[in-house]
């Protein structure tokens, strides 16, 4: 499949598009300003952005900032002969970017290698992934969610869960490669959210129910605007685990006050998550026409 690489024209890397276009399987989309980067990210499917540092009216760091704001999981490479010590990062301390000095003897080769690598490995994301990530995604894709008649059942379940825990919000979410998709949600109107902004991204990394008693006291979440804007203060999430042992999503409750959950409550939430998986499995079995395995 052809990789679409957005190249930002700059004084210190004038040959970016030529390098990209010369590589089999890559094609360059050339722009020359931050505003054009923003537009292209909105209009087209871009796999990677490569920029020099000295671009018209702005710097390469402004380009990185624009990409993180518009499409946070799109990887960016800063390809320049300006050394890291000379690059002004004062306003961009947590952007993190792949840096490649184009003075290196094999810089052009390295660039195309890096582009291919970062697209293939989603390496610039702001979250850690489970060690079975590839198998987990494959397991998730095995469920044809759009065709399964689960919406009403799951909506009733999230109503029940919110009521049972007296929580402001309850939801069932699937953790896909780039985002969390909400299959049902009570107390909020959410369809999907970028993965690095969701708390479930972290809860699927641990085996037991993850509880965050006060998100403002937890560095992983205290700076996430979406959580702050929704007024969320506490979280509890239980894993949805496939029969093969892959965690594909979470069943969660959120509240607008700091709160703790007893061992019994955590076990109850886990039971709800297991019920969700049972429904998903049964509906999937009916849909595909497979005969379910019955344990003696």
């Amino acid at each position, binding site marked *: 499949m052809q990789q679409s690489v957005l190249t930002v024209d700059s004084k210190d890397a004038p040959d970016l598009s030529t390098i990209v276009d010369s590589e089999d399987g890559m094609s360059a989309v050339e722009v020359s300003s931050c505003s054009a980067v923003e537009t292209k990210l909105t209009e087209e499917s871009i796999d990677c952005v490569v920029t020099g540092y000295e671009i018209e009216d702005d710097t390469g*760091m402004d380009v990185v900032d624009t990409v993180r704001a518009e499409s946070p999981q799109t990887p960016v490479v800063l390809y320049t002969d300006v050394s890291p010590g000379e690059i002004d990062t004062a306003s961009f301390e947590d952007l993190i970017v792949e840096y490649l000095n184009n003075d290196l003897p094999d810089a052009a080769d390295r660039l195309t290698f890096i582009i291919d690598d970062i697209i293939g490995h989603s390496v610039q994301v702001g979250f*850690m992934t489970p060690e079975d990530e590839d198998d987990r995604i494959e397991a998730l894709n095995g469920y044809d969610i759009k065709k399964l008649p689960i919406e009403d059942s799951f909506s009733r379940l999230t109503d029940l869960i919110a009521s049972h825990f007296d929580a402001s919000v309850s939801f069932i979410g699937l953790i896909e490669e780039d985002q969390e998709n909400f299959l049902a949600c009570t107390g909020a109107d959410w369809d999907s959210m970028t993965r690095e902004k969701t708390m479930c991204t972290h809860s699927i990394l641990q085996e037991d129910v993850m509880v965050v008693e006060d998100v403002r006291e937890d560095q*992983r979440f205290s700076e996430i605007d979406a959580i702050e804007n929704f007024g969320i203060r506490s979280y509890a999430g239980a894993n949805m685990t496939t029969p093969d042992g892959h965690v594909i999503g979470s069943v969660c409750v959120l509240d607008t006050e700091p709160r703790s959950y007893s061992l019994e409550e955590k076990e109850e939430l886990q039971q709800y998550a297991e019920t969700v998986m049972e429904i998903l499995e049964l509906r999937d079995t009916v849909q595909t026409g497979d005969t379910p395995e019955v344990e003696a």
Partner: protein
Amino acid sequence: MSRAASGDFKIDRLYDAALDSGTSILLTGDDTTDIESVFHRLLTANADEQSIVLATDDNARSVRRSFEDVEGGTGDRTKVLTAEGPARDDDVTAIEDISDLTATGMSFSTVIANAQQQTDRFRAGIFLASSICKAVDDTRSVYRFLNSNFLTELRRGDGIGVCALDTSADLGSSTNSIVSGIETSFTGHIEITDSGITDMTLSVSGIDALPDTIEVNRR
């Protein structure tokens, strides 16, 4: 095209075993001196290798001395990025602000790329990731740094890496969650679970070359 070559990395200064190229280890414990001892014994470079250390709390001289304590002559095979003290020579890069992970990441990648112009094989480490977590407001930037720089360089190059984290550091209520989050993206985890007067016990997971439990001297 792949830049990774094959080859085992012997870790016999700690234990009689060798790690595959690309191996990444999360090293945790609650005693900084013990963590430091294990860290340097894993990362001490052999003659055809270089050690590359991002030091959050030590200056370059101190880092080199720690390697020399493990084995004489290895300090010269060390490149240091340090948040403590100036860059006194070409093998030292000063980090002005450890919370500026954008600049730190670019410097780290540059040091690795320059080292690879001399020799392909390297052992890279962060001492201490807990200090970085304390310095930043948003842990996501630490994850992005580890993904984008540290783990990526290990995957692409011919090297092994150790990320040390002091669990006694004040990271708010989330220390255990941060450890379990980071752990999943590393090849393995070495936890210093117990230490006596002369020995310490290491609990190992995810590293085939090592048993589940190792007793080593504290040095």
